[in-house]
């Protein structure tokens, strides 16, 4: 066998492997291990103060983030994150449902909403500071304000585009008001709400960290900036590492919840894919 044909068979078997679940898992694990190993080896014995060895970062992360102070900071971040997302979801869905179902309301508020939405959420940090001072409320307000838009718009879109036959059957049988919203509209729009939330989650992390960087004395963002200002590069890196893990876990947990809810909302979808 020539070397060319050996290469070709290798490539095609790799290709086949990448299309199976187990093959992807193996390749993925290989990738993860390679990346970690590369980071470990490249940073090993690094004397660049800004890029300390991975080993030292992990050590510091373990040291600091397990102390009561570290745990407190993580909890403070999680508290405001969940508070902000909670308000964004509740208000976004409620307002989105109204806008999507009442054409008059939609026409009336659309330009104002477009304007409010176009303001980058972080531009409102000074405004939020004036309103609430340096506090948890300020952080929650900012996260909610920034994250409400994708949820609201996606919900309104879904409510507007609800299947005609479904709406007609509800109307023909006089399923109205709360019953209609609870049993027909909300489940029908759920997939769109979930898409909105998926877009909002990375945004919520950005806003959480940003608001913690401007004056709040607690949270992951605060620790990172503080560490930078006092030149504790290891603590700074460990904070970034924790934030990465937090973001990863959050996204992962959300994708599990999302899949579950989608299966409930439309079991057919699950069978098709």
């Amino acid at each position: 066998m020539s070397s060319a044909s050996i290469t070709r068979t290798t490539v095609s078997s790799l290709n086949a492997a990448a299309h199976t679940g187990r093959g992807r898992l193996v390749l993925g694990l290989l990738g993860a291990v390679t990346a970690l190993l590369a980071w470990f080896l490249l940073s090993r014995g690094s004397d660049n103060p800004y890029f300390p060895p991975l080993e030292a970062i992990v050590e510091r992360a373990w040291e600091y983030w397990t102390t009561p102070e570290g745990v407190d900071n993580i909890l403070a971040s999680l508290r405001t994150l969940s508070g902000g997302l909670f308000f964004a979801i509740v208000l976004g869905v409620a307002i989105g449902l109204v806008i999507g179902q009442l054409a008059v309301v939609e026409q009336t508020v659309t330009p104002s909403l477009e304007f409010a939405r176009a303001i980058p959420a972080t531009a409102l940090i000074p405004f939020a500071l004036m309103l609430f001072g340096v506090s948890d409320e300020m952080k929650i307000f900012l996260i909610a304000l920034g994250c409400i838009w994708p949820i609201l718009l996606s919900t309104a879109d879904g409510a507007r585009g609800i299947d005609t036959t479904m709406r007609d059957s509800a109307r023909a049988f006089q399923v109205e008001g709360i019953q209609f919203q609870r049993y027909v509209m909300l489940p029908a729009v759920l997939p769109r709400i979930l898409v909105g939330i998926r877009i909002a989650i990375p945004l919520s992390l950005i806003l959480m960290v940003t608001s913690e960087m401007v004056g709040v004395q607690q949270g992951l963002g605060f620790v990172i900036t503080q560490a930078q200002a006092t030149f504790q590069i290891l603590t700074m890196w460990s904070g970034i590492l924790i934030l990465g893990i937090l973001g990863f876990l959050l996204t992962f947990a959300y994708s599990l919840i999302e899949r579950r809810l989608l299966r409930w909302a439309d079991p057919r979808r699950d069978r098709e894919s």
Partner: protein
Amino acid sequence: MLIVSDMEKTYPTKSGGFTAVSGMSFHIEEGELFTIVGPSGAGKTTLLRCISGLDDVTAGSVTFNGQQVSGPPREFAVVFQDYARSLMPWITVAKNVELPLMKKGISAAERAQRVASALEEVGLADAMEKKPFQLSGGMQQRVAIARAIAYRPQVLIMDEPFASVDAQTRADLEDLLLRIREETGTTVLFVTHDVDESVYLSNRVAIVSRSPSRIDEIVDIPLPYPRDQIRTKSLPEFATLRTHVFGRIREMVSTATPMAA
């Protein structure tokens, strides 16, 4: 009981407007099974939407027991062609049937009883806790029919309800409809494009023309009830009536303007 008089329905389009139904008049007696049949492209669905109150008429009127219909009346129940979309996929079969009953004045016990007996009636007593997607197409349409029965309407409106199921299931569902009507005496307004089905089921068959559609002819079907898929369909009168209705529709299609073909 149900009177449609000089009804017209025009949809706004970019080029002015499209008249789907125009000068439509007929009346349905209590307890009757009245079928509207016509070629594809006749405004049958539009007509049904207007009668059931889902759409407003542009001119003329639809009156039920002397009351003008505007918005879906409590006394009507509708069975749609697209069962997959007319049933809510996220709730169980029983809940789907129960949903229209969940309003003031009907106790939980009565709801449960009505749901159970309606599902029993359509032969789906075992499927109560299943989700609609777990059932076959014909069974899903049975659920839709059960939902309509449990609602106890005075008029049952059906828009090509059996057009998306296979032939055997279709015959079963037709007989189910006849049996239910026999037991409850409900008035039925049925829309189909299938000539055999219209003759087999009805007291009267209204043939409608292409849009702007109007009544072309109303044919009495004096075949005796109870009807039977084999016996009734082999009667010479059945063949005569079927041929007559079919002929009228053929004529309409062939004399249509070339553009519409």
